[in-house]
């Protein structure tokens, strides 16, 4: 069963395990009587409501806006102008619906881009099959591009 794909899958499973939010109590697959009201509230806390959570300072660096970031912003604004979402629906999706691991783990405009793709699928402007096929097509083009 050894193949480049299988080793990539195994590395992926390892990394996902390391990215789970640290919740310093046994927390996997609890039985219903192990979840009291306080735990339930903590588990449902939206990832963007970080005020008051203990944390360490993060590294901040000035950086130029990258082309893909500007493109992402423009795409998301066009979706708003065409009525696909309002700013609040976009924020709900990119700040809350993504969950804590993605909220903390993705770059800022990465969340915008992922969410733009998600709403197109959710509201059936494209099918998930079309999105995945497009992704494969672009990946193939990228792998074959001489500039790589």
């Amino acid at each position, binding site marked *: 069963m050894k193949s480049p794909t299988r080793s990539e899958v195994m590395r992926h499973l390892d990394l996902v395990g390391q990215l789970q939010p640290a919740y310093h109590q046994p927390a996997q697959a609890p039985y219903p009587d192990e979840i009291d009201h306080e735990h339930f509230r903590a588990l449902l806390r939206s990832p963007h409501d970080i005020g008051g959570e203990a944390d360490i300072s993060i590294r901040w660096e000035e950086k130029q806006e990258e082309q893909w970031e500007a493109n992402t912003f423009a795409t998301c604004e066009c979706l708003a102008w065409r009525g696909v979402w309002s700013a609040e629906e976009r924020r709900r999706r990119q700040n809350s619906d993504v969950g804590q691991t993605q909220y903390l783990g993705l770059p800022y405009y990465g969340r915008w881009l992922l969410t733009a793709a998600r709403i197109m699928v959710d*509201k059936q402007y494209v099918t998930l099959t079309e999105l995945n096929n497009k992704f494969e097509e672009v990946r193939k083009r990228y792998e074959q591009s001489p500039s790589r």
Partner: protein
Amino acid sequence: MSKAHHDRTHHAKKATGIGDPQCFKGEGGKPKFKAGDTVRIRDMADFFYTRCQTYTRGAVGTVTLAVYESPAAEDEAWDNTDKPEWFYSVKFRQKDLWPDYPSAFPNDTVETEFSERWLEKA
């Protein structure tokens, strides 16, 4: 199904040439609070999405301004604009939010916005 699915231009029709939240002016009813009122932030259910920070729940602050009328975030985040309400800017003493806030800075404040449903008279 979201409203946008059957009429995804409903917001544009309402806001074009007017602006948002100006397009909801007059739809929030009579404001319950005014500048200077002392209010407490209610600790209500907040399934799936809210803009009401948990760290303000139960804290007492002062209304500085009734800012505008708009659908609450809980409704607008699913494209529902049927029931706009008043939004208020509320100022808190940092000391009232954070028990360990240093006493050396008793005048520090933080000001943030709430839709009307989150406020009660204190």
